[in-house]
C-alpha cells in the first residue's frame, strides 16, 4: 500500500466515527391518527423516537396486540455494537499504518461479515417482536403477525411500516467502499512494480 491508499484506509476507518452520531436504521410508521408520522431511529448504541415521546407511544400502541415493550436498556446489542465499531476503527487505523494488503482484506471481510450478522440479528429481533405476542392481547387477528419489514414497506393493520437504512448505514457502506478501493488500488500490477523499480 502506498501513502495514498494508507490515507484512504485511514479515512475509511475514521469515517466510522460518524456512525456513533447518526441512526443506522429508521422505522417510520404511518397511520390515520398520526398525520405527522411516528417512528423509531435505531443507532448503534440506542433506540429513540423520531419525536421525543414516539417510543413510549409506539409501545402504547403495541401493547394492544401483545407485543413486548421495546426497552433499549434490555437490548444487549446496543451495548456491544459501539465496541464493534470502535474495534473496526482502531484495527482499520492499524491496517492503514501497517500497510499490509492481506490485513486490509481480512478487515474488509470481517466488516462485511459483521454487517451481515447485524442485519440477521435485526431481522431476528423484528421476528421476535412480531411473532411472540402475549396471549392476553386485546387485539388478536388470526394468522396476523407484526414483524416489521427488514427493508421496505409493509401494511400492519392500520399502520404502514417502512423500514429503511439510515445515514449510519450509508456511512458504513462508504467506509467499506473506500477500504475496497484501497485494496483494489494497491493491487501489485507488473507495470507499477516496474515503475517503482525504475
Amino acid at each position, binding site marked *: 500500500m502506498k501513502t495514498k491508499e494508507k490515507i484512504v484506509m485511514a479515512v475509511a476507518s475514521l469515517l466510522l466515527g460518524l456512525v456513533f452520531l447518526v441512526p443506522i436504521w429508521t422505522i417510520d410508521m404511518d397511520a390515520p391518527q398520526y398525520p405527522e408520522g411516528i417512528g423509531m431511529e435505531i443507532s448503534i448504541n440506542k433506540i429513540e423516537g423520531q419525536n*421525543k415521546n414516539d417510543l413510549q*407511544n409506539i409501545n402504547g400502541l403495541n401493547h394492544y396486540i401483545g407485543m413486548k415493550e421495546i426497552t433499549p436498556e434490555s437490548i444487549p446489542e446496543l451495548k456491544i455494537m459501539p465496541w464493534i465499531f470502535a474495534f473496526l476503527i482502531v484495527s482499520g487505523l492499524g491496517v492503514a499504518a501497517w500497510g499490509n494488503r492481506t490485513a486490509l482484506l481480512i478487515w474488509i471481510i470481517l466488516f462485511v461479515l459483521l454487517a451481515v450478522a447485524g442485519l440477521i440479528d435485526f431481522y431476528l429481533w423484528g421476528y421476535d417482536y412480531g411473532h411472540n405476542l402475549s396471549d392476553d392481547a386485546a*387485539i388478536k387477528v388470526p394468522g396476523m403477525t407484526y414483524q416489521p419489514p427488514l427493508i421496505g414497506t409493509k401494511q400492519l393493520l392500520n399502520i404502514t411500516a417502512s423500514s429503511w437504512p439510515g445515514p449510519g448505514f450509508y456511512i458504513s457502506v462508504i467506509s467499506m467502499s473506500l477500504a475496497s478501493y484501497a485494496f483494489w488500488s494497491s493491487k501489485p500490477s507488473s507495470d507499477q512494480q516496474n515503475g517503482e523499480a525504475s
Partner: protein
Amino acid sequence: MEPINKKKRHAWWALPIIAVIGLTLYGCPSQQNLSGSSDAAQKVYVAPGEHDEFYGMFSGGYSGQMTVYGLPSGRHLYTIPVFSQAPVSGYGYSEETKPMLQTTHGFIPWDDAHHPEMSQTDGVPDGRWIFINANNTPRVARIDFANFQTAEIIEIPNSAGNHASPFVTTNTEYISAATRFSIPMDEQSLENEDVAISSYAENFKGTLSFIKIGEEGEMNIDFQILVPGFNYDLSHAGKGPSEDWSFFTSYNTEEAHTLLERNASRNDKDFIAAVNWRKAAELVANGGGREIDAPHYRNYMDHNEQRAKSELIETVRVIDPIENPGIIYYLPTPKSPHGVDVDPSGRYIVGGGKLSSVLPVHSFEKMLEAIENEDFEGEVDGIPVLNYDSVIHAEVENAGIGTLHTEFDGNGYAYTTAFISSEIVKWSLETFEVVDRIDTYYSPGHLMIPGGDSMQPEGKYLVALNKITKDRYLPTGPELFHSAQLIDISGDNMELLLDFPTDGEPHYAQGISAEKVKERQIRFYPLEDNNHPDATKSEAETRVERNGNDVHVYMTTIRSHFAPDNIEGIRVGDKVYFHVTNLEQDWDVPHGFAMLGAQNAELLIMPGETRTLVWEPKNPGVYPFYCTDFCSALHQEMQGYARVSPAGSNVPISYGTGTGN
C-alpha cells in the same frame, strides 16, 4: 282608443327610468347580499384539512367564557373556560382550578365577559396573551396563547361593573379597567357605604384602575384614579404620539340613579376622560397617591405545580386627581358616547356618539394644545373640561344612527357600527366623509378587524358582532345564538361573505394572524415538569391512603386503563380525593374521569397533567367510574369500581389493577 295608446306611450317612456333605478339598486350595498354568492363562497372556503388565516377571539358575554373561531371560515374551534365553571373539562370544579374563581365575595361560578384584548408589542398584537374582563364581579383574566387556558384572574376592588376593561397600552405596560357603575365610597377608605340611593350625586364615585403587566404576564393593580360618579363605558389606550394616554368614555354625567334611559340621556354632551397614565405611573413610582385597604384576590396558575393558587392582596394605591392636576382631562363628547377608538396613527380619538347625529372625532394634537393653553370651558369636581370646539377635529355626518364602535383597516379608513340603523359605515380618515355602507343582520354592537384597534391593522376582513339574530338561521325556539357577519373589506366596497352563529353573547372580539399563535402551541405537558404535589408519575407509584375521613387515591391513566381500577375500603362519610395523572405523552390524548354520584363534574385531564375530583359517597355499594373521552379502541373498557362500605366498617383499604382475574 287614444287614451290607451297614450298610456302605452307613457309606459315605454318610463322604461329607461326603471333601468336606471335598477342599476342604482344593483350598486347599492344592501343588494350585494344577493349578488356574487359563489364568489363569496370561494373567499370563505377553507378546504378540509387546511387552516384558517386568522384566529378570531370572541368574548362569550354572559357565558363568561371566550370562544375561538377560525376566520374566514367562521368555524368554532374551541371555548376557553374563563369566568364560568365548565363541566366539559372540570374547570372550576376540580381542586386545581377552583381557586381561579375565588373572590372577596367567595367562590363565584359565573360572570359576564365582554372585551378580549391581546397583548401588544410596539402597538401590534404579539400573540402572547389575551385579556378579558368580568363585568359583573369586577375582575380581569389573562389567557395564555401557548395553551389557550386561563392563566390568571385578578379582582378589582372599588369597582362595580368592570365594563371599560381591559384595554392595553402599546407595549402592554398596563391594562386599564374602569367602573361602569359608580357606587357610594367612603372618602377616606373608599369602602362601599350604606347610604340612601338618592344621595347619588353627593356620595357616588367611580375609579379608573391601571393594572401593571409583568414580564411573565402577571397582573398587579398599580393604581386607581378616583373620578366623579359617572358611568365609565369603554376605553382605549393611545398609540404613537398619544401612547402615554388612555381614553375612557362616560355617560350619565347627569348622575341619575333611576330610570337612566331617560334621566341619563338629557345632557347634549358627556365626556371622554383623557388620562395621562405615564404621568400617573411616575407619580405612583415616586410614592405619590395614598395606599388604602382594599382586599382583592389574585388567582394564578402555578405552572410548576400545575394548579391554581389564590393570594389575597390587602391594599391598593389611589390617586385623587384634584390633588394631582395634569393627570386627567375631560373632552366633551356628544351624546352618551359608547366606544372610544384611537386610529392607527394615534392622532384621532373617535367617540361613538350613541345618541348623536354625528360621529365626533377629536384631535390628540388639539387636545394637547388646549391643555397647554388652559382652554377650558369649565371643570367637574376639579377635573378640567376642555373646550369642545378646540379639541374636535371633525364630525362625520350621516354615519348611521346609534353609532357605537369603530375599528380601522390601516389603509386610511375607519369602520363604525350603527346599532339602530343596523349597518356598518366606512369613512375616510382624510375627508371624514362616509364612502360606503353595508347592512348587517341585525343591530351590530362591536365590530372586529384583525389588529383593527392596533397600529397595524390587517384590513382584509371585518366581523360584525350583532345583537339580534331573529330569522338568520334555522330557528331554535325563543333562545338564539347571536349572529356574526364576515365582510370583505379588501376592496373599495364592503362585501358580505358569510353569516355565522356565535356562542353566548359576543361583545367585542379580536383577531390575529394564525401564524403568530400557531407556532407557540404546546401539545401536551411534559410529565417530567409536573411538580404537582399529588402527581403520580408511574403506575408503580399509584396508591390509596386514608387520613382520617379523607381518602386520597393517587391514580394514573394510560390507554386503556386506570391504575388502580379496583378500590376498596372507602366508607360512607369519607371525602374521597381522586388525584388523577394522565401518563400519556402524545398530542390529543386526554382521558376523562367520571364518578357516579359525584356532585361536581367530570375531569378532563390533558397528557402530563394532574387533576383532582372530590367524591363524597352517600350510600354503601360498589360504584363504577370510567373514562369519558373516547381515548382509544378500548375506551369502553377503561373503567373501574370503588367499593363503599358503611360508616365504621372495617374493610381495609385495598386497591389494584389487573389482579385477581
